[in-house]
């Protein structure tokens, strides 16, 4: 286990270095931050002066070296727009994104498991067909369309739910949470449904197909023959073994979720990391972009590690070798 953790940490560092390098390499093509922080009529020499002050005219390797040196001290650059350290900005935006992902994950777990199991047990029932049809539809509608439709129906037409932002937040030792106020929860409903709309159908289908496969197994037939109650067969025997591939896919999909938060947050003006990243791209705020990519890379590594560990806990047969 210890060796495994050490290997993973090394992996994480390499991943982040590579991402940092790539981010730096393409940063030039993202455009010029100086344009964003000066008025249009500012003279060329003034601009050059500011660029010099920020060290943007130095050769690539010098800039990258500076970045690595800073990163070793935990400083991964300073945002031009926010005028403070990029990591600080990302950390202040992280709670919003994490709460959104967390709520979406809850929605996904709550709905995909019962619906998936049901449509596996009774594949021919009307309800199952509706579930499957609905999930096809859900996968094919883009997130931002779902989001805009929801805003239109529930905010503009019905005035039930707020259309943008996080609402009232409470500060818990630096973690601004919207989970503890009614207003904050109301603001969470639509974004988390929009975000889960992409993943939910996928999980329903995954659970259904895995479950159907498991139900064909000999040991299930044996369990039926023993005269066990259907509930015991389905939940204890079949569902448990269905879970293994679902966990793996879930871990990988969590990464995809982070990508989709960008869309969801943009439509709902949700002040999280994804929204911040899009704005940074628009502003050419290169340090912040690179920092975001590095942080996301780090999250990926952590999530994958956790998935592997959990997988090992759930399925004792699996030997963690670190090579997948």
């Amino acid at each position: 286990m210890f060796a495994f953790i050490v290997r993973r940490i090394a992996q994480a560092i390499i991943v982040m270095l590579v991402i940092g390098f790539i981010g730096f390499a393409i940063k030039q093509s993202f455009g010029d931050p100086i344009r964003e922080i000066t008025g249009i009529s500012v003279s060329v020499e003034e601009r050059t002066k500011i660029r010099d002050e920020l060290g943007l005219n130095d050769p690539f390797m010098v800039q990258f070296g500076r970045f690595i040196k800073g990163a070793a001290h935990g400083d991964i650059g300073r945002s031009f727009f926010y005028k403070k350290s990029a990591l600080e900005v990302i950390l202040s935006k992280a709670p919003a994104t994490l709460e959104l992902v967390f709520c979406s994950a809850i929605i996904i777990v709550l709905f995909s498991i019962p619906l998936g199991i049901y449509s596996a047990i009774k594949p021919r029932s009307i309800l199952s067909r509706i579930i499957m049809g609905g999930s096809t539809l859900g996968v094919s509608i883009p997130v931002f369309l779902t989001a805009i439709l929801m805003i239109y129906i529930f905010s503009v037409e019905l005035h039930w739910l707020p259309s943008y932002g996080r609402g009232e937040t409470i500060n818990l030792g630096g973690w601004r949470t919207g989970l503890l106020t009614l207003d904050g929860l109301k603001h969470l409903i639509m974004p988390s449904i929009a975000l889960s709309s992409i993943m939910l159908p996928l999980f329903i289908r995954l659970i259904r197909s895995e479950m159907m496969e498991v139900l064909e197994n000999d040991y299930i037939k044996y369990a039926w023959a023993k005269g066990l109650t259907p509930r015991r067969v389905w939940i204890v025997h079949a569902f448990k073994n269905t879970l293994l591939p679902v966990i793996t896919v879930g871990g990988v999909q969590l990464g995809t979720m982070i990508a989709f938060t960008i869309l969801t947050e943009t439509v709902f003006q949700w002040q999280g990391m994804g929204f911040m990243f899009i704005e940074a791209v628009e502003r050419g705020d290169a340090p912040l972009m690179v920092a975001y990519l590095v942080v996301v890379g780090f999250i990926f590594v952590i999530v994958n590690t956790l998935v592997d560990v959990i997988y090992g806990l759930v399925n004792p047969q699996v030997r963690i070798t670190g090579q997948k």
Partner: protein
Amino acid sequence: MKRSLVFLALVAILALGLIGCSSDKKEEATAKQETAESATVGKTLKLAMDADPVSLDPQVQLSGGMMQYAHMVFDPLVRWAKDGSFEPRLAESWEQVNATTMRFHLRKDVKFHSGNPLTAEDVVWTLDRIKSSPDFKGLFEPFGQAVAVDDYTVDINTKKPYGLLLNMATYIFPMDKKFYSGKDESGKDKAAIIKTGPSFANSNESGTGKYIVAEREQGVRTIFKAFPQYWDKNSGNVETIILTPIKNDATRVAALLSGDVDFIMPVPPQDLERIGSTESLDLVTMSGSRIITFQLNQKRFEPFKNLKVRQAIVYATDNSGIVEKVMKGFATVASQQGPKEFASYNAELTPRYDLEKAKQLMKEAGYADGFECTMIAPNNRYVNDEKIAEAFVSMLGKIGIKVSLKTMPKAQYWDQFDAQVADIEMIGWHPDTEDSANYTEFLLMCPNKETGYGQYNSGNYCNPEVDAMTIQTQTETDTAKRSALLQKIEKALYDDAAFVPLHWQNLSWASKNNMNTEAIVNVQNFPYFGDLVIK
């Protein structure tokens, strides 16, 4: 296990339903609460713009967002009135002392947010500081020193006679000298103008304006509270302004339609009709002064040196069609740089769309079969910029000119524009001086690195006569003479087909219909929120 899962799912569904159903009751309740509160604390305005101020330092950046902020938290010496005249603000009156000096008499009852009184010293200090700001330096180049005559009288000098002194006085928002002098905790000068890092002035303010910045989370929201000792007793009745930047057009409109915000700016063209036809909302639109043009690069591309080719392109451009179809009528067709309200406006210069004439001119120029060229345009800088460029490309196709168009986000566009990577480039311009000489200085004077003229002249149009006249306008203080000169310049540019004029973008604001939105907005797009009255 299963039972508990199903139970949980049910609970979740119920909870969602309940929140949905109960929320409208909640709204009534909060509305009641709000009215109860408003009786004691005054009105609240929830405002959504497409951007928020980048800093609390009014001199750190020259941009629309910063000017809008400055008008809320600071007051200028004078400000624009709706009819294009100057309204006294911190200056009660002013007179020309000699050819290069204007004397301003300040109000005597003005307090800064810090409690310090406003004196002439603050104005002198503010002008000194603005002249050192990278963003304002260029604009304030004609200015010399300001001299405090006594506590409430200040002389502002220019290096040469300068007809736009009052235009520029709208940019002088006196700052609190005492407050911004000295060292902050980290030992840095409080007055430092810092663009990309923390500074005292970026996060603290002491202006004379109606609003104090009570709370600010950059990019998320800013809360303004009315300043109890504000000098202008005839200002509006809004106690609190909550400013939220909402970049996404659809989201901003939805926020207004759903009642989550009270006031939005700008309104995207595709939603004008909907908002205009909503009973409970007010839509205010106005023709603006930001012109959208294409520049034809004569240095890069041989055929553009030919006057007939340039004229053919102007004749082939159906800018009325673009205004109607692409802009949904939400723009004003242009045939010259400055709009009607400007001194330069020359009524003789009418739009010139005539396809037959364009073909004829191409033939005369020896390009009957047309040619191929390249073009770039931004896709997120001006209203519908990409669509305008595409429409233009298809119009040129009709006279045999094949254009390969590349569009890109503004963050990348300006570098490409400066490098002049294409034969045709799009540029929009709004003069910071609210005067048309500024268009020519930046867009059409011969490019000159030394003087900085023609900084955005990617067409490399160069006409010494136009240059001479434009420079003359800078020191001409006789308004009639100056207007005649400016109109002559427009005529020359028009005859020369120096650029392809498209339209002036309209401005737009929308709000609930219980406030005097119409009265506080203006063509500069700096709404005077201090004067907003909510019924």
